């Protein structure tokens, strides 16, 4: 079966060549991957597998760095670096901070 990400040779429509700045959170996700890789807590291949198993719907819906952080989170739980409980609590805290500052 062809993976939904494995699109070489398929009709892909026009290319969007517009440039855009990265949001702060996107830069942080990028930095996080560099740090985790340097500490040997994740490999590029784990990152890719996580993205390739998000499911076709989520893959289409999520932006580039949203795919990354979804995959990084899953890999770190699988390796026992963080727990789902810790992750859930920190996500709730971040949500509260975002609402308070809005």
């Amino acid at each position, binding site marked *: 079966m*062809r*993976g939904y990400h494995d699109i070489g*040779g398929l009709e892909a429509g026009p290319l969007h060549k517009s440039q855009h700045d990265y949001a702060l959170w996107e830069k942080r996700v990028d930095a996080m991957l560099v740090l985790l890789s340097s500490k040997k807590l994740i*490999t590029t291949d784990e990152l890719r*597998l996580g993205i390739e198993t998000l499911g076709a719907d989520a893959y289409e819906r999520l932006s580039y760095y949203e795919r990354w952080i979804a995959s990084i989170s899953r890999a770190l739980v699988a390796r026992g670096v963080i727990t789902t409980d810790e992750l859930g609590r920190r996500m709730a805290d971040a949500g509260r901070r975002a609402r308070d500052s809005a």
Partner: protein
Amino acid sequence: MNPRFKPGDAVTVRRAYPPGHLRTPHYIRGHHGIVERVCGSFANPEELAFGRNGLPALPLYRVRFTQRQVWPDYAGADGDTVDIEIYEHWLERV
């Protein structure tokens, strides 16, 4: 591992569809190519993807394919080629 193939060898990409993280593009499976160079040996990305160490390292080859053979309706020049880096376990001798 010592490389099984050397530059100039004719190889076929296996028509295999295992689950997991695969570095061999879907579109090239089943096609014939020529080994252009041996790139060295590297940890197996299919194993690394699951958090294992990927050892023993596997030989990686740059394999050259003819565009016209890969894409029957290819509109470019006859001699155009595409090079793809492929791990040894995906290749068979023609």
